C-alpha cells in the first residue's frame, strides 16, 4: 500500500521526472559494467579536451559568461535542447510512458509549449537588452541594487533545488548503471562540473552540452528506429502489442490517473509552460549568440529538437513495454512472482526502462553507450546550472551590488570561479545529505519558482511601462515565497516527505504555480500603480529608451569573438 501511495505521489508530480530518485530502487547495485565505463571515460576525455581548448580561449568576462557571443543559432539551439533534455526527460518520461502509457505524452506536451512563448516574447528582447544574466534585463531601467538582489535570489533558489534533484538522481543512477558507490558518483559529477566551469566557462559548458545533445539525439533515434523496425514501422502494431502485454490493457492509450483534479492540472500546466521562460541557465544561453536574429533562430531549432526528442521518448517507452516487460532478463523474479506484472517487476524501477531497452535492441555495447550518454546528460545539465548560479553571484551580486558596476573584469571572473567551486562543494555535500530523502518535488519547485518569480518580473519589465522597482520587488518576492510555501504545504512534501497524515496537506495543489503566479502578477501591478516615489518616476521614464532598444537592438551588447 505504501508503495502504491508513493508511486502515485511520484506520478502526480512533475519532479518525479527529475530522475525520480524514489523510483530507482537503491541497494540493487549493478555489477560493474565495463563497456559503459569505458564509453563514459571516452566521453569524459573528450569533454576535458573541449575544456582545455575552451580555457585557452577564455580570457574576458564576455568569454566566461557568454562564450564571447560566438555561438551560432544552430549550435545554441542544440545547446538549449541539451539543457532541456536532462536525464529527467529521457529516463523519466520514457519511464512514465512505460508505466502509464499516454500520461507520458501529457508531460512532454507541457514541457514543450513553453518554447513558443519564449520565442515570441522573450528571446530577442532578452538578447537586445542583456549582456550576461537575465537580471541585466530586469534591472535595465529599475533600481540596480534591489532588482539584482531579487534576481539573484530567484536564480539561486531555482538553481539550488534543480541542482540537488540532479545530484541525488545522478548518484542513484550511476550506482545502478556503473556499479559505483553513491558518494563516489556524486563526487565525480561535482568534481567534473567544477573543472568544466572554472576552466572553460560558458564556452566549455556550451560545447559539452552540444556534444551530449548530439549523442543523446542519435542514441534515442537509433533506439526508437530499432523499436519501430521490429513492428514493420507501424505504430499501430507497436501499440497493439503494448496493449496486449501491459496489465492496464487499453487504458494505456488514454489519460489515466495522472491528472484527475482540473485545478491541479491547470496549475501544473502553468508551471511547465512559464517556468521554462524563467530558468536562469536557459535564459543565459541567449547571450551566447551574436544578435537577436540568432537568438530567435536558436529557439526555433531548440523547439524542433526537443519536440522530436519527446516523440522518440514516447516510442521508446512503448518499445520498453513490449520488449522489456516481457523479457525475464530485465525483471526482478521476486516481484514478478508477487505482482504477476512485468511492468512493476522491472529491475531498478521504471526509470530504467530506456536503459534496459537499449540492451534489448542493441546488446551490451549499445547499453554501455546509452548508460554513458545518460551520465553525460547529468554532467552537462549540472554544469549549466552551476554556471548560471555562479554568474548570478559574481555578475549580479559581486559586480553590480557590491562593486556598484565598477568591478574589475578579472576580479569578477575570479569571484565567479570561486563561486563555482563553492557551489560544487555545496552540491556534493547536499547530494550526500539528501541521499535517502525524497527529492522528487524539487524540480517541480524549481519550475514553480521560475514561473512565479523570475518570469513575471522579466515579462513585466520588458512590456509594461508602469512597472516600478518597488512593484517588481514586492511581486517577485511574493511569488518566490508563495511558491516555496505552497510546495512545502502540498501533498508531495507535507504528506510524503514530512510524513503528516494522508489528506492533511493544507494546500491541495501539487504545484503552486496557479496561485503563486497570480500573487506575483497582482503584487507587481498593485505596488507599481501605488508607487509615487521619486524612484518610480525614473523607472517609468526609462521605459521608452528600453523599449526602443528591445525592439531594434540599437545599443545592444555586441559579440566579442568571431
Amino acid at each position, binding site marked *: 500500500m505504501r508503495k502504491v501511495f508513493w508511486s502515485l505521489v511520484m506520478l502526480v508530480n512533475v519532479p518525479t521526472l527529475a530522475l525520480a530518485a524514489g523510483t530507482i530502487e537503491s541497494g540493487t547495485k549493478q555489477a560493474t559494467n565495463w563497456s559503459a565505463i569505458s564509453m563514459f571515460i571516452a566521453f569524459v576525455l573528450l569533454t576535458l579536451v573541449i575544456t582545455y581548448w575552451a580555457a585557452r580561449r577564455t580570457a574576458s568576462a564576455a568569454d566566461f559568461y557568454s562564450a564571447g557571443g560566438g555561438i551560432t543559432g544552430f549550435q545554441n539551439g542544440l545547446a538549449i535542447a541539451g539543457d532541456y533534455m536532462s536525464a529527467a526527460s529521457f529516463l523519466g518520461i520514457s519511464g512514465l510512458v512505460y508505466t502509464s502509457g499516454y500520461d507520458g505524452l501529457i508531460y512532454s506536451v507541457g514541457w514543450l509549449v513553453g518554447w513558443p512563448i519564449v520565442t515570441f516574447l522573450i528571446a530577442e528582447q532578452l538578447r537586445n537588452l542583456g549582456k550576461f544574466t537575465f537580471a541585466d534585463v530586469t534591472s535595465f531601467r529599475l533600481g540596480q541594487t534591489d532588482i539584482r538582489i531579487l534576481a539573484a535570489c530567484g536564480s539561486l533558489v531555482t538553481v539550488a533545488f534543480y541542482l540537488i534533484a540532479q545530484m541525488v538522481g545522478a548518484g542513484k543512477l550511476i550506482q545502478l548503471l556503473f556499479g559505483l558507490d553513491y558518494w563516489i558518483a556524486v563526487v565525480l559529477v561535482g568534481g567534473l562540473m567544477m573543472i568544466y566551469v572554472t576552466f572553460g566557462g560558458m564556452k566549455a559548458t556550451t560545447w559539452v552540452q552540444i556534444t551530449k545533445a548530439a549523442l543523446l539525439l542519435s542514441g534515442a533515434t537509433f533506439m526508437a528506429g530499432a523499436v519501430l523496425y521490429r513492428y514493420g514501422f507501424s505504430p499501430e502494431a507497436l501499440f497493439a502489442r503494448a496493449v496486449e502485454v501491459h496489465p492496464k490493457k487499453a487504458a494505456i492509450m488514454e489519460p489515466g490517473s495522472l491528472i484527475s483534479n482540473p485545478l491541479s492540472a491547470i496549475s501544473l500546466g502553468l508551471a511547465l509552460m512559464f517556468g521554462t521562460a524563467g530558468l536562469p541557465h536557459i535564459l543565459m544561453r541567449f547571450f551566447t549568440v551574436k544578435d537577436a536574429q540568432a537568438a530567435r533562430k536558436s529557439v526555433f531549432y531548440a*523547439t524542433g529538437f526537443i519536440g522530436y526528442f519527446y516523440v522518440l521518448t514516447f516510442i521508446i517507452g512503448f518499445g520498453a513495454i513490449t520488449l522489456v516487460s516481457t523479457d525475464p532478463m530485465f525483471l526482478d523474479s521476486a516481484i514478478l512472482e508477487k505482482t504477476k506484472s512485468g511492468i512493476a517487476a522491472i529491475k531498478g524501477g521504471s526509470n530504467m526502462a530506456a536503459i534496459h531497452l537499449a540492451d534489448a535492441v542493441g546488446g551490451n555495447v549499445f547499453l554501455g553507450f546509452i548508460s554513458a550518454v545518460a551520465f553525460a546528460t547529468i554532467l552537462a545539465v549540472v554544469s549549466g546550472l552551476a554556471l548560471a548560479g555562479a554568474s548570478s553571484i559574481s555578475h549580479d551580486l559581486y559586480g553590480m551590488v557590491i562593486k556598484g558596476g565598477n568591478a574589475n573584469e578579472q576580479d569578477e571572473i575570479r569571484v565567479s570561479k570561486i563561486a563555482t567551486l563553492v557551489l560544487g562543494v555545496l552540491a556534493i555535500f547536499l547530494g550526500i545529505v539528501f541521499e535517502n530523502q525524497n527529492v522528487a518535488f524539487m524540480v517541480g519547485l524549481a519550475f514553480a519558482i521560475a514561473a512565479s518569480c523570475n518570469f513575471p518580473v522579466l515579462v513585466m519589465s520588458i512590456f509594461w511601462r508602469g512597472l516600478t522597482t518597488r512593484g517588481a520587488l514586492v511581486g517577485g518576492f511574493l511569488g518566490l515565497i508563495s511558491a516555496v510555501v505552497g510546495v512545502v504545504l502540498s501533498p508531495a512534501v507535507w504528506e510524503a516527505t514530512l510524513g503528516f497524515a494522508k489528506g492533511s496537506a493544507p494546500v491541495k495543489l501539487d504545484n503552486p504555480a496557479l496561485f503563486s503566479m497570480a500573487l506575483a502578477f497582482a503584487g507587481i501591478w498593485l505596488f507599481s500603480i501605488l508607487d509615487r516615489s521619486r524612484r518610480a518616476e525614473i523607472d517609468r521614464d526609462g521605459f521608452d529608451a528600453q523599449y526602443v532598444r528591445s525592439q531594434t537592438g540599437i545599443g545592444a551588447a555586441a559579440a566579442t569573438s568571431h
Partner: protein
Amino acid sequence: MSSSVTKIEHNPNYQELVRRRSSLGWMLSLIMLVVYFGFILLVAYAPKFLGIRIGTGVTTIGIPIGLAVILLAFALTGIYVRRANSSYDVLIRKIVEDSSS
C-alpha cells in the same frame, strides 16, 4: 528622454515594426495558450474522449491530438521566425540606418 529615442519612435518603420511584431507575437502566444490549455482541460474533464479508438485498431485519437500540439508548437515558432527573418529584420536595418544618418 534622449532625442535619438524620440527620433526612432517617430520613425514610421519603427512604428510598423512594433505594431506588426507585437500583434503577431501576442496572437501566436494566445493560440498556443488556448490550444495547450484546451488540451489540458480535455485531459482533465474528458479523458474518455481522448480514449476513442480510431477505426478498428487500438490507436486512440488522443495520440494524434497530442502529437498535433507538439507539431503546432514547432510550426508556430517557425511562422514567427520566418516572418521575423523576412520582414522585421528589413525594417530593423532601415531603422538603424535612419538613426545613424
